[in-house]
């Protein structure tokens, strides 16, 4: 926790005023990252009646949040303004009542088009992938598959048009939305199927995929090889000579003993976090495939099929990296590089599936059957509660003689505000 301690805000403000502090924003972000508290007075207009399986925040304004439910319903909330007390409106919804083109089954993946927010992509368990025009809320294109697809992802680098899709039979499908071609299939995984696909942050040709058998493979889509690296949990990065590290990339290498539930690249582009059904979370170096010896302790993942972790990493100092991990009904915050558990966020009544970090507003969105917002506003919220209490008291005692005779007593009460 001490790692996330930063200088007093007043001193920092003064240093900025005198031109002594160039990393002001980074430092203020660091202060807030590990100090999240539930925003009790920020509500999203309720919509989902079933559990929410996934969410996606648009990356050009960091403003619009898509959420998809187990019943195939999708809705979009406007997360601005991030006031203390606010009700976030629904921008649009896609369901049986509002849109003929809706999904009929669980939403597996929601993707905002990386370059602008005029387009988003949805993948459902109805074996359909749809590309939507955001402004008209109408499908621009649609793909139907023969097999179930559990995960879709699009590279966040500019000028990309390829969606990767992981199928239940182990096929890795590439769709180029510019040309509409959907026939490129890589048979990387075995028949147990692919749970997750994710593009590398900084390279539009490299792809990570995770199987139900616990395999995590890195594929270069330009190459004819099925994959160029398979993560092996026994391939360990260590200073200790007694621990023999294995560097084979045989087909037997597995990252987790059971199916992989989460795959998340760190913003530094050189680390990957995986979370498995074996209740382990592992940190990997993506350049050499070595597992770093960080112990996060067991992480229970029982009820949720696919979990989305949120990573926050300080741009100027990558040792300050946090991950927000759904852990049953709560969210645990770990320091990624040391494995230290910093704090636990409680507030959901059902198991949490997805965490999303908004790095512009410095807040966290999490979902189970509802969506909650977390931010570093403990003091502001306490101030608000106090002011509400004082107001109530004022109404109650407006007519009290004490107040009329002794106004100073009132000002004393307000001292606490």
């Amino acid at each position, binding site marked *: 926790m001490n790692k996330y301690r930063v200088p007093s805000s007043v001193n920092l403000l003064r240093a900025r005023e005198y031109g002594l502090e160039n990393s002001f924003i980074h430092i203020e972000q660091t202060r807030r990252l590990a100090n999240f508290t539930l925003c009790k007075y920020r509500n999203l207009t309720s919509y989902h009646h079933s559990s929410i399986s996934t969410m996606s925040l648009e990356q050009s304004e*960091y403003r619009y949040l898509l959420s998809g439910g187990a019943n195939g319903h999708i809705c979009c909330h406007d997360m601005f303004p991030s006031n203390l007390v606010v009700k976030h409106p629904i921008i649009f919804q896609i369901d049986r009542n509002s849109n003929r083109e809706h999904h009929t089954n669980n939403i597996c993946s929601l993707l905002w088009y990386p370059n602008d927010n005029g387009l988003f992509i949805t993948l459902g368990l109805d074996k359909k992938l749809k590309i939507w025009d955001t402004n008209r809320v109408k499908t621009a294109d649609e793909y139907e598959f023969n097999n179930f697809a559990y995960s879709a992802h699009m590279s966040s680098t500019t000028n990309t048009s390829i969606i990767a899709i992981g199928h239940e039979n182990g096929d890795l499908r590439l769709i180029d939305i510019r040309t509409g071609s959907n026939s490129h299939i890589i048979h990387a995984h075995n028949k147990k199927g692919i749970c997750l696909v994710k593009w590398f942050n900084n390279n539009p040709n490299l792809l990570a995929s995770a199987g139900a058998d616990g395999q995590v493979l890195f594929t270069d889509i330009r190459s004819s090889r099925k994959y160029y690296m398979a993560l092996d949990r026994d391939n360990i990065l260590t200073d200790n000579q007694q621990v023999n590290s294995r560097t084979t990339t045989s087909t037997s290498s597995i990252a987790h003993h059971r199916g992989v539930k989460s795959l998340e690249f760190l913003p530094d582009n050189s680390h990957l976090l995986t979370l498995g059904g074996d209740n382990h979370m592992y940190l990997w170096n993506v350049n050499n495939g070595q597992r770093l010896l960080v112990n996060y302790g067991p992480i229970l993942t029982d009820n949720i099929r696919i979990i989305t972790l949120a990573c926050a990493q300080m741009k100027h100092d990558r*040792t300050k990296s946090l991950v927000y991990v759904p852990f049953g009904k709560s969210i645990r915050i770990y320091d990624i590089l040391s494995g230290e558990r910093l704090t636990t966020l409680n507030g959901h009544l059902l198991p949490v599936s997805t965490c999303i970090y908004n790095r512009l507003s410095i807040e966290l969105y999490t979902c189970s059957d509802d969506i909650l917002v977390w931010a570093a506003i403990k003091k502001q919220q306490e101030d608000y509660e106090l002011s509400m209490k004082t107001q109530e008291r004022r109404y109650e005692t407006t007519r009290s003689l004490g107040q009329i005779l002794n106004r100073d007593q009132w000002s004393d009460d307000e001292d606490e505000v």
Partner: protein
Amino acid sequence: MAAMNYVVTVQRPTAITALTTGHFTSSTDFNLIVAKNTHFEIYVISSEGLKLVKDVCIYGKITVLKCFRLSNMNKDVLFIFTEKCHGMILDCRKANHDQYDILTKCHGLLKDTGRQPVRQPLCTIDAKHGLILLRIFEGVIKLIYIKELSSKESSSKNLEAYNVKIDEQNIVDIQFLPGHQKPTFIVLHPRTTDTSTINRDPEEYHIRTYQVELKEKDITKLTWKQDMTLSEASFLIPIGQDIFSCLVIGRNVVALYKENDRPLEIESSLLDDEASIVSYCPIDEDGCRYLLTDYFGKLYLLVLERDKRNGSSSTTITDMKLDLLGETSMCEYITYLDNGVTFIGSRFGDSQLIRLLPEPENGSHLEILESYTNLGPIVDMCVVDLERQGRQMPWYVARFTYAIDLLPKRTRVSVRLLNREEALSVCVITFADDLSTPYIAIGTAIIFEDEDTPKIGRIILFRYKNGHLNMITEREINGPPHAMLAFQGKLLVAVGSSIRLYKFSPQTHELTQLTQYLGHIDCLQVKIKDDFVLFNDLMKSITVLRYNVDDGKFEEIAHDVSPQWSTACEFFDDDTFICAEDGGNLISCHKDSGSTKENERNILKELGLCHLGENINVFRHGCLVTQQTAESTISIETCTLMGGVSGYIGLLLQLTSTLYQLLMSLQLALAEYVPSVGKIDHGAWRSFESDGRSDVSCGFVDGDLVETYLDLPKSVQQELIQDLRGENNIPINTTVEELVKIIEELARIH
């Protein structure tokens, strides 16, 4: 509704941000080149002193400025790198009548995506091999190959740059080692921060050596390396030719390392434990003597003593000596000129020209020859009318032994604060219930370094009567009072995240809180206009409130929903507000009062965006001229001054729609016509850029560019207005005379 602002520089930045020396203007001239944020000044050094010969503006903030000379050239050229990652190599030609032309030899955008380091970009140049090395992002170094520069071609070539991966993270310094066959450089970096080594002592540093394979455009590791334990190692100084040796300067230690040799360290008692060394410069060509300066402005002389036994050519250094020479301005840039004369460049104080004395006079080994004024950092400012000549003066609210010159008689009073208590804000106020007496309110907070935000503070009220100041009352508050203002005979205070209003009763001598508005994170500055209150938040942009006199409460009128890390704010008029942001951008926000939809009425639209390249601390209404000619076409009512960290003072003005269209179309024409130093596109320079957001510039006319129209030859002036087009591509008809008259008027107000 549109944003129609005019922004122009009144005072160029005065704080020095980089220094270099060389034979730039000609092979016989020796120049001092001083970068001041967005412009650089070229001086010729002569026996009479420094003579300013040219001041060059750049479309960018200069972060690297280095003179160098390729082996086949007879004079130096200048390498500049800007904050928006534009690189350029400039040459200078002397024209007639002491005029100097700046030529761009090479240019290019060197931007990559990547992780920003904590430190400024690092740059080192190997002139022998024609190689510039830049470290802009973590894990990557950029190699720039410089080919032929001496050609007479006037067109500029693109910089040839290659990225190379480097393992070392958080690099502190990079330097080329001179004299090697292949370009060889050393890297200073702190211990690795991967998980396995996370808990080691933080004071460990490493030196690594690399060689550049010019043909392969790659680097290879060399064997020489050095691990060291130093406190805050900050500089590398290569020593000698064709050997592996360097000096490392830490907070209170200077160490010499050499391949196959024991390190030589001095821990002089002269070096302060508190103050780290912030800059250095060599005195002689052979690198025997160096000048060092520390954080408190102390100047030291470091002498390396060589082994005399093996003849004079020996490079073995046997001892090092450190002497204190005296005190100067606190400086981060120092350069030795000639004959003991040294230039001291400061960001926070005046820059100085000093002479080093062989024998001490009055206990100091130096004599200050000249001082160069620096206005920065401008923390606060007010506009004072002196004999009808508008003149602004920056003043500070830093200590609390506070001189109050605002009252008729000069009064000095000092108040002792508690331990750890600091004054954050002040205001002069007359309360509604006691209009005859001026009061002074001081807001303080008790600051602990390990506390995120102060939890306790107070408002102290003083009364000024008959030439005396008396403390009347104090009131405890539960947060830092960032700002204070007199508002309708009451005291308006921004406490932490809230805006509070206090009234004072002269009978009971008490401050009573009337109402409060709860904001977002931290309310930093507050401005008022009639019933309206405007404040900017640490990270939630600006909000407009109205004080409802009947209810005695604040109601929120509108706010900007974008998360902007704002630094300052001001009213333009009832519906237009200006906000400065942490990344050096200006935002003008507009309220749509006429809208029928409620959710549109209470949202401020960001209609104007512009990159200023200056970190603005303060806006103040006011103008530098009071009188206007009768037939004036511009109104100076909305005139607003702004002051920045670098000593920059700028002026903002609202334009009428037609004038805005005219000037904007002229700006576009000028941006294409006026050659920019380093071939930086004007649009790229002014485009809004902050952490996580970039946007094209809009709603601001760049007065600095538009006013260059006046200096153009008549034929060009005529040519430029041939095809001016406004909104929707509608042609604008104007004459040179009309335009010149308008622009002259605009130029006159600053």
